[in-house]
């Protein structure tokens, strides 16, 4: 039995009929084809699936697509504007914040929420903010540097 939802995803209104049990991450990846949002642990721990829902970082493996009805969702695909990488994206490249890259979309979306709340975070504040995002390459050091670099560029 499908439930009709309307979600604004990366600035575009999407209408879909979804099963109530469909998770937001599967809606984004499988229904809309936005595969930049990754499924990591699938148990609400690793943060690879983090997207912004009404501007707030949320683990999309722990939210139902129907809960996003009427919301604005932003994924990694919506960060670049007019072909220009978002400062967080270019900073991850500059500061070597990617190793295998699997955790990167989630890291960037959480960092976007952090910088929205705190435009000039300390190293400690950045590390605290990334508690819910795991990098199994253990590349946290350059991830923190990338977020610091982006913070400088955004102010």
């Amino acid at each position, binding site marked *: 039995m499908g439930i009709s939802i309307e979600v604004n995803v990366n600035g575009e209104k999407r209408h879909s009929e979804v099963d109530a*049990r469909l998770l937001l991450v599967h809606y984004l990846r499988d229904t809309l084809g936005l595969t930049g949002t990754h499924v990591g642990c699938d148990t*609400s*721990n690793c943060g690879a699936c983090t997207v912004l829902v009404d501007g707030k970082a*949320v683990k999309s493996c*722990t939210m139902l697509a129907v809960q996003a*009805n009427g919301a604005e969702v932003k994924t990694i695909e919506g960060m670049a504007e007019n072909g220009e990488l978002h400062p967080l994206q270019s900073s991850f490249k500059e500061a070597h914040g990617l190793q295998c890259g699997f955790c990167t979309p989630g890291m960037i979306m959480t960092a976007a929420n952090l910088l929205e709340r705190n435009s000039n975070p300390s190293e400690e504040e950045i590390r605290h903010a990334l508690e819910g995002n795991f990098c199994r390459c253990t590349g946290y050091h350059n991830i923190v540097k990338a977020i610091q670099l982006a913070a400088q560029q955004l102010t």
Partner: protein
Amino acid sequence: MIPSSFAYHKPSTVDEAIQMLQDAGEDAKLLAGGHSLIPAMKLRMNSPSALIDLRGISGLRYIRQEGNAIAIGAASTHHDIIDSNLVQSHLAMMVQAGSQIGDIQVRNMGTIGGSIAHADPAADWPACLIAADASIEMKGPNGTRTVAAEDFFLGLYYTALEEGEIITEVKIPIPAPGTKSSYVKFHQPASRFAIVGCAVMMKSSGGTCQSIRVGFTGVSDMAFRDTDLEDAIRGKELSAANVEAASQVAAAGKDILGDHFASTDYRLHLARVFAARAIHAAS
């Protein structure tokens, strides 16, 4: 991992939600932030026949002063609470506890009503609400009633909430001038849940404890008020030696949890250590 199928309802008022809960039958569940329920559904540890999504009820998400109390709507997220100027001004321990719940993503979705209804024995809010002498308001088919936080938590994932009722509000008295509060916690390293969490609300004068309320979480199968510990320090000078001595009665007589993260002995030891830290932090 995919939850099993369920019917989905989204009421816009509490009364509508109560009606839907009655109509949907006993296997229906209320969905607040979903950060305990959805993982459990994905693991098929819980397979409700229907979910009643409370996020559409705008009248449940507020933090405001009502007389001499702070009223927190049950659907307020952990972030709403730690960001509230009112909470920051009066209830330091709520800010300390809220900012240690899970991570940013969890705090953006999880709600205080959902947390206390779930009553995880290691959740942070219950210890604070007990120490703060909060009351919990519930609404059901038979009307509204209020239960003191210290009488609300009855066992493992078991509360005073009756079938068909919805938590609508948490009310916390504004502490008297000169009262300080603190929440300290020993984290489970992965989940960030409390292995031991201790909340203290204390009024001291001239370095002597005048009045105190202590709430513990993580230590036993439910959050509890520790009146033995309160009695051991009330009226005493808050010297390191006195606090150390009083903290030895922490969690006395309780059935202490033991698991592969912390044995019973170690957990009891942590309860004493964190009791002392929380008392010092509220001095």
